[in-house]
C-alpha cells in the first residue's frame, strides 16, 4: 500500500500555512496572536523539512532531526516569549505592540 501523493501537494499546504503566519504576524497587534502566527510559520517549515526528507532523501534523517530540534527550540522560544509577554503585561497592563514602545530608540 503506497501513498501516491505528489510532493507538491504537501508543499502547497505548508506554503499556505507559512503565508498565513506571515499575514498574521504583520496584521496582529496582540503579542500573543503574533506569537501564534510565528508558530504557524515554524510549523510550515518543519513540514517542509520532513516532506523533503521523506520524499527526496528517504535514506537519511537530517530533515527529520531538523524538524525535531525545531520543535524543541520552538518550545523554548515560546516559553521565553510568553514569560516576556507576561512581564510586559504586568508592567504596562497591555499586550499590544503599539503600547509597548518604551524601548524604542
Amino acid at each position: 500500500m503506497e501513498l501516491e501523493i505528489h510532493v507538491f501537494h504537501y508543499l502547497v499546504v505548508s506554503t499556505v500555512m507559512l503565508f498565513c503566519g506571515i499575514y498574521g504576524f504583520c496584521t496582529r497587534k496582540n503579542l500573543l496572536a503574533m506569537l501564534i502566527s510565528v508558530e504557524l510559520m515554524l510549523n510550515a517549515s518543519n513540514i517542509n523539512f520532513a516532506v523533503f526528507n521523506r520524499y527526496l532523501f528517504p535514506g537519511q534523517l537530517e530533515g527529520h532531526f531538523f524538524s525535531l530540534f525545531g520543535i524543541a527550540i520552538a518550545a523554548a522560544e515560546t516559553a521565553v516569549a510568553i514569560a516576556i509577554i507576561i512581564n510586559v503585561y504586568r508592567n504596562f497592563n497591555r499586550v499590544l505592540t503599539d503600547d509597548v514602545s518604551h524601548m524604542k530608540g
Partner: protein
Amino acid sequence: MMDLSLLDITFYATAAVIIVCSILAVTTGRIVRSATYLLFVLFGTGVIYSMLGYTYLGAVQLMVYAGGIVVLYIFSILLTRSSQTMRYRIGRGRLAAVLAATATGAVLVIFLLASQHFALVAIPQGVELPAREIGHAMIGSDKYQYVLPFEIVSVLLVACMIGAILIARRHK
C-alpha cells in the same frame, strides 16, 4: 475523475483542515479561538508527519506543540486577559499592503513549486521510521548522528527555562 484511496482522502481532508484553520487562526477576532485553530493546525501537522512515516515526530508534535505550547498559550491568554484587547483596527493601507504581499508571495511560491516538476514518488505506507534508529542517530557522535545538537538543544532548553522563570518572576 481519478479514484481516491482512503489514504488520499485522509490526506486531503487533513490538508483542508490545516489550510482552513490556518486562515481562521490569523483572521479570527477572538484570541482564544485563534489558539484553538492553531491547535487544530498542529494536530493536522502531526497527522501529516505520521502519514510520512515519521510517527515519532508526529508524537513529539502532538505532545510538545499541541499538548505543551498550546496549553501555555491558553494560560497566558487567560493570565493577561488579552481576549478583551483583540478589538483593534489596523490601517487600511497597511492591510492592503500585507494582503497583497502575502497573496503575491504565496502565488509566487506555488508557481515556483509548480514549475519545479517534482517527480511523483510513491512512499510506502505503514512503514514507520524505527525508534531504535532515531535513538541511535540522536545520541551517536558519528557522521549523520546528532549528539552535539541534541546536547546543545538540551542546554538551550534549560537556559530558556531558567530565563523564562527569571523573567516572569514577580519582582519584589
